[in-house]
């Protein structure tokens, strides 16, 4: 074993230079021509910038809500609730979210609420909601913002991101982009 240790140390150092050093730096160099120089994609409006992919908390009634989050959308950390599917405390929490939603959205039937709107995401930073999750909020926002429901429905259609190539994956809406566009509607 002894005769192996010195070469092993040397080989490890060479690997350190190649993989932690040269590989990392070359990806970093390429990132300089990527969107926002590899610091995360951003979107700007009214002189303020936001991260496109990092979900934000929207709890005010005049914005489309984002999903519940186990880390309250503080992107200094991340994570899910890790609650089991049959945990009674968890189920009570979901029931409470449904009840709260119904109070804030009069005229909506329970069966119209999609599950993504009352369950926490894996990252706690989910930037998206389903199309149904946006639609179910139209009535409330139209009332508060004094807008036509049809205008909002059009906005949702515009903001809907189709599955990849129209073939693979889910249909979804970026809540931040939707709300930025909503602010522009006035």
């Amino acid at each position, binding site marked *: 074993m002894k005769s192996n240790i010195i*070469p092993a140390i040397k080989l490890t150092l060479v690997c350190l230079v190649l993989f932690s050093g040269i590989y990392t730096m*070359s990806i970093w160099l390429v990132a300089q021509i990527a969107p926002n120089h590899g610091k*995360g994609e951003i979107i700007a409006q009214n002189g303020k910038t936001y991260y496109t992919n990092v979900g934000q908390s929207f709890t005010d009634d005049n914005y489309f809500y984002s999903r519940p989050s186990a880390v309250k959308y503080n992107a200094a950390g991340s994570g*899910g*609730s890790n609650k089991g599917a049959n945990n009674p405390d968890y189920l009570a929490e979901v029931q409470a979210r449904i009840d709260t939603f119904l109070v804030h959205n009069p005229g909506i039937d329970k069966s119209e609420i999609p599950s993504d709107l009352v369950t926490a995401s894996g*990252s706690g930073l989910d930037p998206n909601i389903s199309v149904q999750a946006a639609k179910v909020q139209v009535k409330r926002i139209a009332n508060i913002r004094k807008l036509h429901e049809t205008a909002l429905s059009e906005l949702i259609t515009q903001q809907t991101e189709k599955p990849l190539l129209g*073939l693979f994956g889910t249909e979804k809406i970026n809540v931040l982009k939707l709300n930025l566009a909503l602010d522009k509607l006035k």
Partner: protein
Amino acid sequence: MNTEILGIIFMYGLVVLLAILLGRYIGKVFNYENTWFDKLFNPLDKLFFKLSGIDPKKEMNWKQHLVALLSINVVWFLISMFVLTNMSWLPLNPDGNPAIGAELAFNTSVSFVTNTNLQHYSGETGLSYLGQLILMLWQFISAGTGIAICAVVFIAMKERTAETLGNFYSFFVRTCTRILLPLAFVVAIILVFNGTPMTFEGKHSMITLQGDTVQVSRGPVAAFVAIKQLGTNGGGFFAANSAHPLENPNYFTNIIETISIILIPIAMVFAMGYVLKRKKLAWTIFGVMTLGFLLLLVPSVMNEMNGNPAIAKMGIAQSMGSMEGKEVRFGSAASAYWAINTTCTSNGSVNAMHDSMTPLTGMFTLLGMMVNCFYGGVGVGFLNFYIFIILAVFISGLMVGRTPEFLGKKIEAKEMKIAMVIALLHPFLILAGTAVASYLFANNPTEYAAWLNNPGYHGFSEILYEFTSSSANNGSGFEGLGDNTSFWNIATGIVMLMGRYLPIIGPVAIAGILAGKKYIPESAGTLKTDTSTFGLMVFAVIAILAALAFFPTLTLGPIAEYFSVH
């Protein structure tokens, strides 16, 4: 057709196609045949060996291979311990994160050197960028270790009598530079252009549209995520792993990352076919692995897409399926698909939280790790499968009254003893660990109340999952478990060590001993190992072993949970 299902069919079809091509290339690398990349890598390899003072042409027998492997792994462990416990004053720490304590450093070092990537810390607050980059080094070279030692077993399986089986360092360097590096480069670039950060700047403070102030963690993420997936490592840069929108920003990156998880594990099977010139054997093995994989996959996808029955009772719409712990941009089908990929291959990265999946999906992810060879980890997945082949050869030999032979070598008592010990080690580590932890918890539920995030059967599953993941060198978790404690850091550290090195030593010893035996040419009396009959035999051995060893514990966990609702 449903676009979510179409998405996973596309991912699987594409990865098998790519793996067949890559397998051929890997085979060429092991055979020292000419490839496209030689112009670049021949001089680089020479430089590697010159600087390290290693003669890559020195032939080694199986024992020397193992000594070389173990000694370099010891070096990695020690370096890792030093860096992790001294991060606070070392460079590349823009967020001023503290160093971590000895127990957590032990667990983390073992975890990354053994290719497990079990994480009892959160990347955002637990590590400096230097710490991350050191762990990324282990992600490269621990994967290189697994693939290199698997190459040694391939060489040993050749139809000849041989004492020496090539040079470990040579296989190791060729694997890291010619296989892992180019692939990681491509994947990292794709991620960078899709919004995954690659920066050395620290957290960014910003005000949201609604007016809240939040901090956004960043870092050299793209480089890290690429090799984390390709090397079946799985350790996330951020706590939420590939569910995090910066690690895995959209459905396209999700396709790329999912493919990266399972690409090399499948390719290794075809590489074996190329090295041994036994394509039919490779397809037989691939068939058995695929059968197992699909049996775990299909019900998991169905369960997640059908949603959580307890939530259905509340009367809301579950058209997207069970969404707790899942991201809208992936949906429940791609999340379930990833879950089975990551547990079958000992990768352990997640794009949805396994703790919140429906009970039966939880069971299938557990089963993937318990079997640990439906494709399996890079290199080591094949070694695990090799053990089951040896067992199946012996059992079917007894059944039909022929001498058990595999590829022209007689399998005798010594090899069988090793194979049995290795086959039983995995259940032993999992069940003993789970038993000890459950005993502690049951005797003192108040003291250990912080362990479990969920009551009842699901809480038991959290314990079982942690030990299964450690022993399988997987690294995913039912993350509700409060695992940064002395007990969990030390217990899972020991399990990871045993679960990594013994299942490497065993198959290499068997293959090495067999390589030294007299070669007996195939005759009419030889049991054919590249037929579907033999494939089913191997599958039966795996199924019986897994069922007998693990069924009782699964009954106490996920199965009991399932029946408590239905």
